[in-house]
């Protein structure tokens, strides 16, 4: 009787350990796989526009397009970027609100930016004017080469008072 009880406890233990390993393993594999295969893009320089097509000193918006892999699909992903000026030099900013990633857009004729999800306003320097955004707009890596403005599309951690790249 004692031996049978022992065998039973051992099989129950092994059984539940196997189950736990299988369950945890699935979650881990799935999690790792999603990070490896998930939507991402290469950190290449993306042309934004010719420099002479950007009016100096006037904040504006442009669309950038880059190749990305979204699961099984290779496609051109498009994003909106904001162009602001630092001492008459154009700097490209992400249009993703630092608060919770909603889209920030220029208010026509007003020279300030708004995120319409939770009503954060930003001035022409990208600083927060009002609303819940924890920091100003996030600048993207920018360069000018042969008269063309380039940027790199980077994502930032939402929330937090400092820009942290993901």
């Amino acid at each position, binding site marked *: 009787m004692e031996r049978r009880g022992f065998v039973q406890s051992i099989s129950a233990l092994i059984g539940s350990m196997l189950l736990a390993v299988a369950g945890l393993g699935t979650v881990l594999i799935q999690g790792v796989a*999603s990070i490896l295969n998930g939507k991402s893009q290469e950190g290449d320089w993306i042309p934004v526009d010719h420099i002479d097509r950007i009016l100096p000193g006037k904040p504006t918006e442009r669309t950038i397009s880059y190749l990305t892999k979204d699961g099984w699909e290779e496609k051109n992903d498009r994003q*909106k970027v904001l162009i602001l000026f630092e001492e008459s030099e154009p700097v490209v900013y992400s249009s993703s609100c630092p608060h919770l990633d909603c889209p920030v857009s220029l208010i026509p004729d007003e020279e300030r930016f708004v995120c319409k*999800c939770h009503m954060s306003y930003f001035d022409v320097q990208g600083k927060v004017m009002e609303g819940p955004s924890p920091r100003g707009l996030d600048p993207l890596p920018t360069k000018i080469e042969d008269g063309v403005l380039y940027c790199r599309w980077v994502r930032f951690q939402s929330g937090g008072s400092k820009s942290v790249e993901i």
Partner: protein
Amino acid sequence: MGFGDWLDSRVGHRSAVAGSCQRPLPDGVSWIRALVFALVVLFVFEGLTGFLLSLSYSPSTEAAHASVDYTLNETLFGGYVRSLHFHGSSLVLVLITMIGLCCFYQGAYRGGNEFSWILGIILLNLIFGYTITGFLLPWDQNALWGTKVRTSIMGSTPMVGPMVQNVVQGGDDIGNLTLTRFYTAHFFVLPLVTFGIYVLYRGIKNHLWKKKMGEVSDPNSLPVYWPFQASRDIMVSCIFVGILFGMAYFYPIHLGPKADPLLSYPARPEWFFRWLYQLLKYFEGSAQIIGTLVIPGIIGTILFLIPFADRSGRSGFAGKKTLTTLLLFIALFCTSLTAIAFYHDLETGHFEEVALWEMEADTEFDVDGFYKSECFECHGRKGSGLLDKTPDFSDPDYWSPSRPDVLLIKAILNGVPDEKDELPEDEEMPAYEDQINAAQAKALIDFKLKPFASE
């Protein structure tokens, strides 16, 4: 021997049916049980309508919106089924709140019933899981941006946040893999867990029933399920199903414009999440976590602990004044935040703006005639603009996706104010809202102005 006898000798269905119909009720008949029955009925309804919707749904960023559009417009009763499914979730939430309130009033979690209450709270969280995953599936603008906010909230959790966000989204951003996993969660994982909860609930109830039956001296004096409890079950379910059919009929659900990462959109969550949405606006910077995790967490914990905090052992509110006050305060808190959120949207013209976003062009409108009589003089025959400041519609760059039609509709209807006063009066863009409506303005944009760029 008839077919019924033959079947019964193998399956034993007669005694099974008789057994559950004549099951004695040691606690007597109750309306709460009828509400629980209605909740089960609504869940079955959600399952059925969800199954029908899944027949013509394709979870990918390319196809999702088009497939829902197809369901709405080209399948038999597709729009009605979708409305039933959508409103069903609200009704489930209302019903589970009613059950919770009744149980709280009666102290129904006493006498070993604590775990039924806890299962109820778990179910409430599962319902939130259903709505959050279901929200993304139509892949319209509201779905994309609303979900972005939610996954970003997950990402802003200290320590594990970014990893959780990555796993939930299936990558750095919302895309195909987010749709597939939300879809699987919505129609496979969550229903499976829900069914598990139901089985546990029945098991607990059965256990308690046996215990109680052992204490009853004369089981024959008890009321039986059929018809005493069954009539209430059926009546309450019919009322709720009736309300659901009425809501789906009178308030059909529309599909918004397709999700587009280039266009900004004033996204809003469902009505029952509006208080959380409003809460987000008050906590800035690193305090955000108070609105997203701390306050909801505290409320959730209070709900979980109610059966253990209520030691009164009596039914009615009088015996548990502290808990009642606390719950009233929470209800007041959520209701007033919801009211503020809606009031603020009313004041800032949010609903008008959403209507403009979803505006469909009036195909009957004579765009050529209108253009000739009103626009031609300044914008020219080819739309390239004759004055210094008029935009060039024939330039394909003008129609960049970051210029939503909403802005143009507004410009046509309200005119473009010359704030710096640099233009002579006859060169300003006048307002046309007295002459045309928004659908006609949209027609003008779609059928007259946009074609200039391709000429």
